[in-house]
């Protein structure tokens, strides 16, 4: 198993390298950093723009391969270059990653766990009222655009704050600006800011996972081994959990890993609406600014997450299913 995973990691390294090269070349060809400085008041002299672009390494008067080698040489040492505003991409990267993690982690984990439980529960109660209601709610959610849900949540929060006469629920940014106080105060402030985005992210995860889990659980419910478990004298609940759900989780490992990926790179709307400055927002704004180095950085991040998700899926599958362990 260890050798197998090491080999897998080797393949991933090759794939990552290819992804990095391609995204650099594509970003350099498609984006026009000069446009970012055009039409400024007061105007910037072409010579000054030229100099600035040379400094950050995206001057299109230099041959593409030259620029790439220059960038790659530094990237190999862990330096992803300068943004178009001449700040460090690495610093921005780190900050944005932290924001994204804080925003998404709780919602994703919560949504995954609740989604699995909701799916398993509705499978056991197939075609009863509770199953139909959860199914209906899931499909309603899945067909709602993120921004609509977020706006609805905001409206709800405003109504709540108005009726209770407090400003308990906060929905802009990560924290209240200029807040002072001890650790407890800061933590509480962060928590109330996290509430709405977490609900929004978790709801989508629940809606999606519960559908998959319901169908894998239904496959297992009619199985012979579940009948064996009952014939041994296990009560219904422990048979369902130890023998049913445990087996029905195996096909979910792939969904989990790639679902995690989708949440990471697809949280653009959630970030923008709730005013969090994470990776998704950075991606959009760096494209708008024709910021080659930042776009490449986000792409590298996405590639790493994709490959890590795949690796995680393999690990998870092996952990859940003894049949694939010595493949």
């Amino acid at each position: 198993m260890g050798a197998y995973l090491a080999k897998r990691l080797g393949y991933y390294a090759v794939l990552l390298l290819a992804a990095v090269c391609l995204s650099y070349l594509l970003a350099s060809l498609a984006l026009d950093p000069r446009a970012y400085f055009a039409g400024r008041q007061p105007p910037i002299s072409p010579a000054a723009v030229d100099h600035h672009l040379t400094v950050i390494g995206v001057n299109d008067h230099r041959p593409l391969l030259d620029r790439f080698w220059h960038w790659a040489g530094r990237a190999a040492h862990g330096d992803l270059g300068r943004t178009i505003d001449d700040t460090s991409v690495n610093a921005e990267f780190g900050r944005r990653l932290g924001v994204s993690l804080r925003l998404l982690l709780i919602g994703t984990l919560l949504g995954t766990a609740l989604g699995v439980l909701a799916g398993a529960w509705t499978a056991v109660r197939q075609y009863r009222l509770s199953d139909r209601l959860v199914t209906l709610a899931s499909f309603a959610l899945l067909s709602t655009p993120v921004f609509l849900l977020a706006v609805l949540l905001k409206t709800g929060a405003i109504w709540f704050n108005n009726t209770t006469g407090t400003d308990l629920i906060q929905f802009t940014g990560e924290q209240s600006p200029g807040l002072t106080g001890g650790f407890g105060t800061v933590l509480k402030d962060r928590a109330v800011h996290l509430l709405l985005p977490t609900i929004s992210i978790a709801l989508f995860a629940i809606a999606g996972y519960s559908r998959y889990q319901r169908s894998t659980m239904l496959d297992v419910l009619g199985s012979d081994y579940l009948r064996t478990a009952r014939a041994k004298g296990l009560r219904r609940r422990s048979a369902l959990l130890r023998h049913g759900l445990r087996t029905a989780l195996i096909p979910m490992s792939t969904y989990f890993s790639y679902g995690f990926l989708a949440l990471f790179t697809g949280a653009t709307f959630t970030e923008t609406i709730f005013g969090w400055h994470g990776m998704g927002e950075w991606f959009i704004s760096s494209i708008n600014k024709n910021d080659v180095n930042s776009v490449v950085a986000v792409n590298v991040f996405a590639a790493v997450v994709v490959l890590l998700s795949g690796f995680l899926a393999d690990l998870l599958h092996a952990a859940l299913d003894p049949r694939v362990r010595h493949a």
Partner: protein
Amino acid sequence: MGGEDPVLRVRDLRVAFGGVDAVRGVHLELRRGEVLGLVGESGSGKSTIALAVLGLLPDSATVSGSVRLDGVELRGAGDAALSRLRGNRIAMVFQDPLSAFTPVHRIGDQIAETIRAHRDISRRAARERAVELLDLVGIPEPRARAAAFPHEFSGGMRQRAMIAMAVANEPDVLLADEPTTALDVTIQAQVLDVLRTAQRATGAAMLLVSHDLGVIAGTADRVAVMYAGRIVETAPVHELFAAPRMPYTLGLIGAVPRLDGGTGTGMLVPIPGAPPAPGALPSGCSFAPRCPLADDVCRAAEPPLRKLADDHLVACRKAEELQGAAPADVFPVPEVPRTPAGPDDRPEVLRVTGLVKTFPLLKGVAFKRRVGSVYAVDGIDLRVRCGETLALVGESGSGKTTALFEVLGLSAPEGGSIEVLGQDVAGLTRQQAAALRGRTQIVFQDPMASLDPRMTVAGIIAEPLLARGVARAEAARRVPELLRQVGLEPGHADRFPHEFSGGQRQRIGIARALSVRPDLVVLDEPVSALDVSVQAGVLNLLRRLKAELGLAYLFVSHDLSVVRNIADRVSVVYLGRTVEAGAVREVFERPLHPYTQALLSAVPLPDPGVERRRARVLLAGDPPSPTQRHTGCRFRARCPLHAELAEADRERCVREVPQPVPHADDHVAACHFARPRAVLTAEA
């Protein structure tokens, strides 16, 4: 056994699924230490009874009646109370041991879980006990094997583990639902042995559900016969087989092909028609539509199960008339067409010599590389003459089907040679191959999967003709003729396959194969998916067609009783290699190779008198993996004869591959120390 109270008493049990009755008023009594065999064809409701006793029927089932364990009523008891009994006082052995274990938990843990569900002992002590139980059912290295997952066990080992799990809490009642149906005969013999041992060791009463009269004859003390959801006859095992008093029981016994050839002409006695669908029962006796003795009284009301003698109950008005009757006295026996004699001068339609086929074992994600081989066929010899049936016999994985598809492939084999109708297939042109293909046809095992559900029967039968360029009108003219030939109504030509029963579908498959007037028909397990009473009709049909049309059959089967009935000659394969071949009668009555002897002795005979006093050649373990390369004799690791040989003789088995040696007229065996041993008759 008279005065003792039964440990399990089932009274007037009725089960219905969505308004369709599956079990209709069943009475059963199970006494301590006895084995009650419950026989019936598929859909007769026998498995439903076992699940109803455990209270494990799906929610959609409506159940009524009474199930008492030691006098305590189980029907209506809550799930908590029933859970305390399940696996503890009533335990079950299921049919398919692969799907009956949870794939993600270790075997030892699953057994330990059964113990801990009912006993307050530590996890560790339960694991220890699981290891002891695995040892009890004969699993080698039980401590190491307890840590294995179900997929790492062979089918036979899984079923042993299943038995270990069932007897873990020393239950009072064991329910075994077709416990050996999914296994090969030699493994079936091992598992039945373990089941009997476990049952005796725990003193449990056992309900053995099976469709196999041979299994019942060898294991049960009393037998209950089910038909259409009711018990129609129950009697002690010897009496039931010797003097059945219900026409259905009589028919079942007459329809089973016998390994020892049975008596008379060799034609089986089929029961006409097919069992009724549960939703469409006839009024009156449910067997009346198939019963030659039925009169208006039978058709008017269902006969009750009444006492005929002390332990013999029967649900038939005519039971008294049936005293001493044989199957052929009740059911019409078809005419026996004689195959013309003098087999030696007839031309050969197929000759296969030293056939070899290996499959590569590949490894790697992007670049596949060969890491080994599966030696699927590794020296098979076959010879079929015109008008003759050759049976190719072997256990699953022995290479039968691979050999068959190599023959039908009509291309040069990897090793050895194939001659079809006198032509070596290695040098065929495309036209020659196409011409030969029309003269060799196949009938498949699964009659449902091998017919296109969207084509009419006429379309299915005419297709091979059209493919060979026969005009549409001519093909259409042949269809009714072919349908009549296989015993189907020509008027049903425009129906679809799903409108036919399993036996009728297999007849359609035969008609399709016959449409192009082949010389050689390859039959791949053609009756293994059919019930006994239906199987007999198809086997008789095959015999009649062979005689009428002068066909040659290559008949692939794992069922030696069927082979005895239909084949003229037999070829036994073990791990891809022919070990013995010859005339059926000769091979079955004087088997020379130890594997053939073991195979024959493992097949249960539907005759309790003989079955319980036969010589047994039990094989140890499972067949080795076909990925190994063997030196010397590939059977020696499991060979009972090899174990008895002197040291110098054993050396020869290790060193030298045994070659086929003629021992008698048309009898060849590949064993250095071949000696005949009768295994079909009772020992003196």
